[in-house]
């Protein structure tokens, strides 16, 4: 389609290709990607720890669940764009902005997923952990986390896709580095091929992360499962 429509609004495939080669070969793509990935990673870690603690507390205690549920539900409905804007206003141009924005957008769906997942913890195995007097840490390691793995993996998948969207917005509005910033620069100079090249590069990295990293993690964490052969 781009081949036949080639005009300033929809650039020719070759143009995008040239642009891709340029950003890859001069190293700018990887430099900016590293910055963006670092910000996503940091926000992700915070969101993960917060969600795990809150999700488990909500799943185990109905009072905590009742108390935190409205906040989680409100958090779910706030668009990532709003978090991005607010964090830029609150924290200015700093690492805090990107970290908090990513964490705030990720925590609600992740928390909900973990709280739901905890309801599937087997009561029978729970009794076993009581019989052998396992500590809280051991219960987390042997019972809760393994039960939560499918929910966590799902949460990581959804979370990553959301984190990308939020971080690009934060970088466009308030930061002077990263993939979002580069997108904004290309946009300002009306370089459509540039915008598309950055987007395609980004999508490629996403796919590699999904199939390579999360897929590998999933295979490792679920190798104890019996697989039907019919």
């Amino acid at each position: 389609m781009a081949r036949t429509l080639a005009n300033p609004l929809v650039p020719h495939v070759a143009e995008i290709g040239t642009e891709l080669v340029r950003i890859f070969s001069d190293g700018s793509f990887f430099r900016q990607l590293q910055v963006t990935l670092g910000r996503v990673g940091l926000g992700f870690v915070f969101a993960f720890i917060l969600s795990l603690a809150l999700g488990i507390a909500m799943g185990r205690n109905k009072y905590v669940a009742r108390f935190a549920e409205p906040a989680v539900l409100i958090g779910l409905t706030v668009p990532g764009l709003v978090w991005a804007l607010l964090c830029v206003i609150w924290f200015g141009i700093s690492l805090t902005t990107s970290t908090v924005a990513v964490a705030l957008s990720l925590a609600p769906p992740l928390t909900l997923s973990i709280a739901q997942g905890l309801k599937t913890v087997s009561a029978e195995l729970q009794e076993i952990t009581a019989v052998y007097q396992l500590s809280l840490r051991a219960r987390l390691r042997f019972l809760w986390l393994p039960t939560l793995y499918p929910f966590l993996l799902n949460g990581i998948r959804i979370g990553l896709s959301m984190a990308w969207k939020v971080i690009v917005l934060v970088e466009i509005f308030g930061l002077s580095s990263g993939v979002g910033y580069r997108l904004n620069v290309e946009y300002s100079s009306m370089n459509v091929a540039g915008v598309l090249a950055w987007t395609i590069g980004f999508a490629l990295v996403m796919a590699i992360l999904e199939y390579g990293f999360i897929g590998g993690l999933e295979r490792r964490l679920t190798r104890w499962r019996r697989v039907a052969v019919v």
Partner: protein
Amino acid sequence: MSFAVSSASSAAVAPALAIEHVSKRFSSRTGTVVALDDVSLTLEPNESLAIVGRSGCGKSTLLRLIGGLEPDFEGRIRFEGQDIAGPGLDRGIVFQDHRLFPWLTISQNVGIALHEAAMPEAQKRQRVAEHIELVGLSGFDDAFPHQLSGGMLQRAAIARALTADPRLLLLDEPFGALDAFNKINLQQELLRIWHVRHIPMILVTHDLEEAIYLCDRIVVLSPRPGRIQSIVPVTLSRPRDRTSPEFTSIRKELLGQLGF
């Protein structure tokens, strides 16, 4: 285990477990069910006791009370003189479902019993290996539960229950879900293990043959409310012949007591 005080008269030996006037009620929206009503029972050291009865007679509830898995009840249960307050490593439990963690290997599952023990890692590994060998599962240490048969999983569950060195073994219909041949096989194995370990055990079962084959005394519970109907001693020498006339007559007596 030859240091056991065999010269002491049996009257002087304190019971391992004393159940005194225990009642247990379950309340629900539709009303209150009396699961156990004024049950009193003692268990001698090294004794094997079976609890039989129709389903709903409270036999599993009684075992769960001894295991400390049900908090609210009336009466007193003392294990080695101490009131039972919650579950403890001094009482090993085997359930009808093996309750192994599906994501842990057999040796990791057995090792759960020692996870909180203050003991060097090497010693823990050795004890786990010993118990896996005791139940005849050597070579399956690194297998996941889904790779093993039902009988083997029950063996692993027995190994886990014994690894923490409990002083009482509680079995809640441990072989109820196994096929007839596996069942006989595991009953013989349990008898062998019980002889090796010398600890008292309580077996809840609905299989009369299993109760007569394994136990010194058989407690018959009557249902709703669960009460002790009678206690039948089994004095046959071991190993017991399931087809002998004595065995059959005890079975007949028990069947009569249960109303068949």
